[in-house]
């Protein structure tokens, strides 16, 4: 049940412009008339690879997978690396549990994804492309394969496609089995048939990626915006979202956002970056359910941050969310009402992060376990005097030693909790009570001083 939410008319549609209301795919000729593959024809007929990358650079497109790396930089780097073979890998694994933004995109508009892959491959000079999709998304896999077959039949991609001008083989590969597969180097290891553990960067995958060859790895959502940029021009794309300032990188374009929790209408919506969180909940999610009051929002999936009600004026873009201690991540916004406990939520999300750590870096493997233990002690009321400082110290160590974004983001649920819900932590630690009534901390009487003990013994 992947619900697509109605958004205000003033919000531009980039990735979901062509989807039908009932979720059925248009037959190929009608999809072509609606604009599919127009950008690909335009690119191959009229543009050189360099112009395409310049176009993407002017648009200021940034990776939608979470890190927000500038796409054009990756493309230049991949194109500039000498190699006999280059790959394009589209990441449609969608690791965050409970999220279905990428699935919705791949199911409703597979042509946009495949076309984006093709344009990226043309720009960097790749002849092989792999779309890695979560094996659980049977429908998305079927539709992507169908879209590739139709494009091959029409002579758009495949061997000697576009009147014998170029060769591009696109393959859909189902992957499954670990949360970390959403990370680019881990996904590449999985496609090589190895244990999925992240690699040290640099060298970036754009220089040495799949089977040691330069590989362009992008989220499917990033690639799906590429045809739109080519058709409508970079200026139109840069006009959406937040502009580039002197010091800010700017977050142009739109993002698929998933609303869940205590909202009236949960589902996926395409939101221009730079919209405030409150506005998204109000205008896309239809506000909160009746009779509940917003307490916090988990922004960015299980590794995201807990943001309190008074930070709902934050804008949805890469930088401002990072500064607030959350992350754009998969674009998931889970809204919680007054019945939620920030300490308990932080603890459970941290446990998820610790469970899914691959174990390659030791601060991540052991540090996250220790963080869970500290958070467990908070929730149970068995805290030790130094626990708070230890938690912050350890979190900073884990973040500093980060090999991949998993451990850089993993302490966020606890750190943002401590930052915004300090009073709630104090209530657990010092008073032994949980204001939301979720945890059952035990008050421990302060231990008797030596003099008192002596008095008791002599009495």
């Amino acid at each position, binding site marked *: 049940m992947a619900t697509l939410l109605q958004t205000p008319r003033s919000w531009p549609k980039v990735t979901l412009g062509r989807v039908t209301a009932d979720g059925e795919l248009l037959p190929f000729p009608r999809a072509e008339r609606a604009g599919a593959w127009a950008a690909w024809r335009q690119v191959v007929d009229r543009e050189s690879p360099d112009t395409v990358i310049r176009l993407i650079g002017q648009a200021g497109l940034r990776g939608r997978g979470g890190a927000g790396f500038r796409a054009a930089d990756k493309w230049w780097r991949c194109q500039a690396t000498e190699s006999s073979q280059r790959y394009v890998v589209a990441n449609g694994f969608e690791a965050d549990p409970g*999220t*279905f933004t990428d699935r919705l995109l791949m199911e409703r508009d597979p042509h946009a994804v495949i076309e984006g892959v093709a344009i990226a491959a043309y720009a960097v000079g790749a002849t092989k492309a792999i779309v890695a999709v979560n094996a659980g998304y049977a429908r998305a896999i079927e539709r992507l394969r169908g879209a590739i077959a139709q494009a091959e039949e029409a002579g758009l991609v495949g061997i000697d496609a576009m009147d014998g001008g170029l060769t591009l083989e696109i393959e859909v590969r189902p992957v499954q089995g670990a949360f970390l597969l959403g990370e680019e180097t881990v996904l590449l290891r999985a496609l090589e048939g190895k*244990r999925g553990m992240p690699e040290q960067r640099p060298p970036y995958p754009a220089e040495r990626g799949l089977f040691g060859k330069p590989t362009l790895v992008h989220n499917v959502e990033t690639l799906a915006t590429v045809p739109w940029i080519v058709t409508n021009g970079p200026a139109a794309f840069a006009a959406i979202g937040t502009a580039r300032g002197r010091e800010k990188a700017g977050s142009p374009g739109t993002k698929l956002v998933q609303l*869940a929790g205590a909202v009236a209408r949960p589902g996926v919506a395409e939101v221009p970056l730079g919209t405030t969180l409150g506005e998204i909940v109000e205008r896309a999610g239809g506000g909160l359910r009746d009779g509940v009051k917003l307490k916090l929002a988990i922004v960015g999936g299980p590794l995201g941050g807990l943001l309190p009600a008074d930070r709902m004026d934050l804008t949805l873009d890469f930088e401002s969310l990072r500064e607030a201690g959350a992350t754009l991540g998969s674009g998931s916004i889970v809204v919680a009402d007054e019945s939620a406990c920030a300490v308990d*939520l932080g603890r459970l999300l941290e446990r998820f992060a610790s469970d899914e750590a691959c174990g390659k870096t030791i601060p991540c493997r052991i540090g996250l376990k220790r963080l869970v233990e500290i958070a467990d002690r908070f929730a149970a009321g068995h805290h030790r005097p130094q626990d708070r400082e230890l938690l912050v110290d350890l979190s900073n160590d884990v973040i500093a030693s980060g090999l991949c974004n998993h451990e850089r983001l993993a302490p966020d649920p606890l750190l943002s909790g401590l930052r915004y819900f300090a009073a709630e932590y104090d209530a657990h630690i010092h008073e032994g009570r949980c204001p939301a009534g979720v945890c059952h901390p035990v008050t421990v009487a302060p231990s008797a001083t030596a003099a008192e003990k002596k008095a008791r013994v002599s009495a």
Partner: protein
Amino acid sequence: MFRIPGMGLAKGMATTLIRFFERKATVQYPEVRQDISPHHRGRLVLLYDEWGALKCETCFQCAQACPIECIDMGGVDTKNRYHIHWGPPEQYAERREESALRRSGRPVPDRTFIPFDPIDVGPLDRILEEEDYDPGHMLAILEKTQAAYGHLPVAALKHISHATGAWYAEIYGTASYYEHLRFELPAGRRIGLCRCPSCTLLGGGRLREALEAAAGTSLPGTSPEGALSLEAIDCHGDSPTEPFVTLDGEARQGVTPASLAELATSLRAAAARPGRA
């Protein structure tokens, strides 16, 4: 830029001159001997005897004794076809038996060695043929093997290792990393629980704690007697009002921590065999 001719040479000679008067670093070895740590074992190399034959008996005791399993022995077979690596520790005893037989001329049984169950490699050979014996397709090979045999038997992994040339340790590493690959036949009943933020918020954490306590294992895992396995599943937003719980793949509504613990306990009890007092 202005340079004085011969300046570089002068600098070099100055260094030589300084070194000339310094204490010498060379140790006059047979006469003078340095203090060496008692833990020092010298360089790890295979020694040759005076006839040029390897002194290594391939007894595998070094590989078995190595606490971090970093010693691994390998080479090519006599026809130069396969790159062979001796893989898991349980194999070492098997090799030691061979070695002992060769040296003493009589079989020396090893009680610590438990041989793994043999399998019919027919289906596996067909899978390997399909995948072109390519270690790059390892995940596909393993997934198909699991589909054919129900799980990944040790014998299958060994056979894959020999056929593709990939190290056993590497294949084992891959197979043990991915949650959907398993080394034992699946348990009879499965309870799945979603761990997404939304389900957590709705009380998934408490369900998980109750379930883990009742099943005696942590979430992706199988209960000790093997009757019940717990799976981490994904709700994909299908369950907006309560935590997403499944029993054998079917969604279940209205689950509380107490009822879930009761369910897990009853499933485990149903599989228990009557014991004797």
